[in-house]
């Protein structure tokens, strides 16, 4: 054992904690940077709604511009919440990034809210992309109120898919299984949702789609794009979406484990 001299490591003075605002700002900056460095993966999330926006141009006359935009936004919200969010959480949990943060004096909620904030930024960008693509390529123009209402509606509706993503990553700990499951749910929702809403799967399936997370979100966004058409159906869809969000979020938080091992 060596003889030592000691530096002032204080035990008696109370430690001061960094402000929650400062902690959150540091986490958010890091999460946004990480997302930016993964921008190729992010672009892949945006590609499908944009492809559908262009491919469905011939359907505008039959179904109307808002219908096309609503489907594209709904698909984008699906992609962000179910594919992007759940996979990024599963990956970071498996790498022990959350455990490392949790042994620091950062409150747990700041870690998750920072992640969700990044997803809201992605939803905003995706929605703007669809608006711009729809206007430039499909010549779909909305009123100013329609753009504003549908922009905020898409942010609110993103909650249901983020909650579903949370439930997936809560129930399943293995990141590969999360990836496979999220792909399956994503494809099932958008394929059945798209073809069902086009009436290609029969009336019964059309009804089921209407009450699925895909259908309710699409209904809300469709009416928000043209606010003057907001009606009882939109209110019901909003209520059902809220119900889905509460149930998925409750299960996602209840099941969630910070450590995958």
């Amino acid at each position: 054992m060596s003889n030592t001299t000691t530096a002032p490591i204080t035990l008696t003075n109370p430690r001061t904690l960094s402000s929650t605002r400062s902690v959150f700002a540091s986490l958010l900056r890091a999460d946004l940077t990480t997302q930016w460095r993964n921008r190729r993966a992010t672009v892949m999330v945006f590609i499908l709604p944009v492809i559908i926006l262009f491919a469905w141009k011939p359907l505008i006359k039959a179904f109307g511009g808002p219908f096309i935009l609503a489907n594209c936004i709904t698909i984008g919200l699906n992609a962000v919440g179910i594919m992007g969010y759940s996979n990024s959480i599963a990956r970071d949990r498996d790498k022990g990034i959350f455990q490392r943060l949790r042994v620091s004096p950062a409150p747990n909620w700041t870690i998750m809210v920072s992640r969700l904030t990044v997803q809201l930024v992605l939803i905003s960008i995706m929605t703007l992309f669809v608006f711009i693509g729809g206007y430039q390529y499909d010549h779909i123009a909305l009123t100013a109120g329609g753009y504003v209402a549908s922009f905020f509606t898409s942010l609110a509706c993103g909650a249901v898919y983020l909650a579903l993503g949370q439930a997936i990553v809560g129930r399943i700990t293995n990141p590969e299984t999360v990836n496979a499951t999220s792909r399956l749910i994503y494809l099932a929702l958008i394929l059945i949702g798209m073809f069902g809403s086009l009436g290609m799967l029969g009336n019964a399936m059309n009804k089921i789609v209407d009450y699925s997370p895909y259908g309710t979100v699409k209904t809300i966004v469709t009416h928000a794009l043209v606010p003057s058409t907001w009606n009882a159906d939109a209110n019901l869809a909003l209520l059902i979406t809220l119900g889905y969000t509460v149930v998925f979020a409750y299960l996602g938080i209840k099941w969630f484990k910070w450590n995958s091992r």
Partner: protein
Amino acid sequence: MARSFTGFFPGDGRPGLAGAATTFYLRPMSNTSQQPVLQVQGLDIFYGSFQAVKKVSFAVMPGEIFGLLGPNGAGKTSTLSAVESLIKPSAGTITVAGYDTQRQTLYARACMGVQLQSTSFQPELTVAEILQLYGGIYGMTLDRQRLDEILRDIKLQDAASKRFGQLSGGQQQRVSLVIATIHNPPLLLMDEPTTGLDPQSRRQLWVRIEAMRDKGHGILLTTHSMEEAESVCDRIAIIDHGRIITIDTPQNIIDTNRDRPEVIQASRKGKITLEDVFIGLTGEAIRS
């Protein structure tokens, strides 16, 4: 000169846990308090009906490297997780620099630095960005000059803009250690810090850990390397089946147990080492 104390803590007059009138040595620490930086008392941890940790008590003093050794599944990680307040103990109390880890969790965490077994930072972030992230969490402003100083200290001055995922294992470990100590915590927790390191990196790490001890940090570490524990730890606790079976200095643990038949049987080189005592006390069977 090292001073000799009788008792679990200097001056408290209680017998050491490994036996009556255990003598161990602590460095004199004139300007640090004699309050332990970590105190664990009567810790019980259950996973369902399985009890992983049973009435574990120990303390880590400032300026001390305390090794927690045990076979796989002995309860080391559970104990460490409870100290980090990642799991809630069924019974017992843990205080870090006087803060209760259950009731004053964030304050307790602010007083500890943690180096986890696997280095765990976002691989997309650069070294400088990781330092800024944790600096922000600990309420520190790291300007360019301070960042350069830190990076120079860990010999990574050219790696500030390198992404964490591009660093070698040794470099990642250095970043991990500097993050654990960036806020100058009284207590440093290290979970198998040398796993996967080459001899040079391992040696460098121990030099840094010993330097921190010399500055007055209390260090709690787990390791499977008995040689390392024997050479760097001031005191060691051997834990098995959730119970601490001995706490003392490495040399005292060897001396106290060298005549036990199971230790002699475990000895392979004629000379009794800490590993022989460890095997003798915990058994030769491989744990899952």
